[in-house]
């Protein structure tokens, strides 16, 4: 059981880190950025390609992977969101435009094969790949019947530390106050001298950097990098997590991430493997019936 709890905390950390980026954009813009899972994939794919195909060091590749993910956040803002915002398009239009960008990003990665236009980005097509052994130190210890793997253990404090830093930034810094002001009322924020467009761009950068990092940690720790890791592994779950935690709430996303991880693992242990997804989403449904606003959604105006 101890091993299963560790499994739950690990995957919960990934869910939480991914969902924090998801919910940050919703909190500020009131729209769902469905390109977030593609950014998750992009971070992992770029890091892998830099290491394996361009000979870069693992640590540099991780940094560049996060930078590329953050820049993709800017692309989301300038291509998918800002033009629609200027035209006062409804939120559903932005949702569709981000789905479109996600499909383009994934298609570009899966077309990446030797000799193709996207070979600089990815050369393995639809194939799942793993980082070559020895790329990064990954000792494994067996203690008291538990298997402790360095990469998975590292994911937990990294995720928690980043979420705490984000929480601090949002609450106690000028940037955080600006973001919260935009979330509260963009027009009032603008009248108070806040550069709203700049704040929104910054939101997308932070959100996408977190999404890219979550993808890197996932790909490295689970040895699974492919064009589909975002879509298959975290997209729907991330959405579930932010609903569970309360739309737009960062503490809610963190709690929701760990809770979903725990529910999924306990479903396997206690009820049988074939009902895992069903149990997890039944719990989510129950939660929504009892508390539609999620854990931290009571005061919607105080989100993020």
């Amino acid at each position: 059981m101890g091993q299963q709890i560790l499994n739950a905390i690990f995957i919960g950390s990934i869910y939480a880190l991914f969902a924090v980026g998801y919910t940050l954009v919703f909190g500020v813009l009131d729209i769902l950025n469905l390109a977030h899972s593609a950014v998750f994939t992009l971070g992992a794919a770029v890091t892998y390609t830099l290491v394996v195909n361009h000979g870069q060091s693992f640590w540099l590749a991780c940094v560049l992977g996060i930078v590329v993910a953050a820049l993709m956040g800017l692309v989301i803002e300038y291509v998918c969101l800002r033009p629609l915002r200027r035209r006062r398009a409804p939120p559903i239009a932005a949702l569709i435009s981000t789905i479109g960008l996600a499909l383009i990003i994934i298609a570009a990665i899966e077309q990446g094969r030797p000799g193709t236009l996207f070979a600089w980005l990815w050369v393995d097509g639809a194939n799942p790949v793993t980082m070559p052994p020895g790329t990064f130190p990954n000792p494994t210890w067996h203690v008291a019947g538990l298997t402790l793997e360095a990469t998975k253990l590292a994911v937990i404090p990294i995720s928690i530390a980043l979420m705490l830093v984000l929480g601090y930034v949002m609450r106690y810094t000028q940037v955080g106050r600006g973001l919260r002001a935009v979330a509260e009322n963009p027009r009032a924020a603008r009248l108070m001298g806040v550069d709203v467009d700049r704040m929104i761009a910054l939101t997308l950068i932070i959100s996408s950097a977190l999404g890219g990092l979550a993808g890197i940690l996932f790909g490295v720790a689970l040895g699974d990098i492919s064009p589909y890791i975002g879509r298959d592994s975290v997209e729907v779950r991330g959405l579930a997590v932010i609903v569970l935690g309360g739309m737009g709430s960062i503490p809610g996303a963190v709690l929701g991430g760990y809770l979903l991880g725990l529910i999924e693992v306990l479903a396997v242990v206690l009820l049988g493997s074939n009902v895992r997804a069903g149990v997890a989403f039944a719990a989510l449904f129950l939660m929504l019936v009892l508390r539609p606003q999620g854990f931290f959604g009571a005061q919607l105006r105080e989100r993020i």
Partner: protein
Amino acid sequence: MKRTRLISVLVAAIVAAACGSTGGGGGTSGNSYAGKTIKLGAILSITGAGGVYGPQSRDGMNLAVDQINKGGGVNGAQITLTVSDDASLQTQSAQVAQTMIQSDQDLALLGPTLSNSAVAVHPLAENQKTPILAVSTTGINIVPNCNFPSTVACRYVFRDSLGEETAIPDNIQSYANDAHPSTGVLLVAQDDKFSSDGGKIVEATVAKYNINLLKTIKFNKAEADLSPYVTTAVGLHPDVIFITSLGGIPAKIMIEARKQGWQGQFLGGNGFNTATVSKNAGAAGMGARSASAWYLGNSFPSNADFVTAFKTAFGHDPDQFAAQGYTAIKILADAARRANLTFSDLPGDRDKLRAAMETVNIQSPLGPFQFTSTHDVKQTVWVIKMDGAGGFTLVHEIKAS
């Protein structure tokens, strides 16, 4: 004089007819083929879950087409092959097949890559009386009963891939004879036909070899993390873990189980049989066994030529899926050569091709190739194991019975 001329003309006509009837090396008129095009369409999973296998099939097919066309074609007719990606989606697969049959007017189809898509595509081809040759579908009820649960045999559906109903029992028998395991756990993806069929076959086979199946652990392919399932499996301390799943999943399970300290034997099906799985599993996959339709070092005469040509063309070794794709084109070319095609009556030509496919008898990288009476493959089975470095080594050769 007139009479002599008439006799001369008659003799010339008879000689010409006789030459025509034996021309082209296969009992058809060479002249009717010259300058014509034999249009084939392949529905393959280049992207999505089956993207691990589809590109290999495509490369094998393209190599065979290139060789045949450069060698003068099929009685002088050139083959054109259109490969369309079905993205591993059943609906897209059926749409592509419909287009190839009705709009493109292809003579015959190949594929699709996944059994899950075949259940939609094969009945469609059967209904449209278009020959279709499966090159990688290994699930249950692919041939002959493509319209399962109907038991009426499909006439236009063929398969050159080794069904899991043969491969998995052969593999289990082979390992049981070698190591006499007593317990096993099955990890099976429950949300695709190929994987779940494989799981059913494992469950139906193990008792025959005195292996007690401790637990069947089902999961979905789109799981973020398979560790909870692996932890459950390893906690039961089985001698064998059976894995029936697609794409990168077998490798992920192997890596996780080894990390958790489990030292037993992995046994699987066709899902193991590509270099991507072996490479991703790395040292964790060392010794993992499966039964394969093909083995890189097999001693069939046409295999060495195929391997050399493939490596020259693509810069890496072929795998089972490339060999099956390559063989499929050779099968269709052989059948077309003997089918006495008209190139003016597509339904008639499709029917002639279907009939000729039933009597195919060629040498291929898979060995001497013939279809059974149920349009399935009859061939040698190779039990192979992963070498820990992205390749496979031979364990046993099981001759076709």
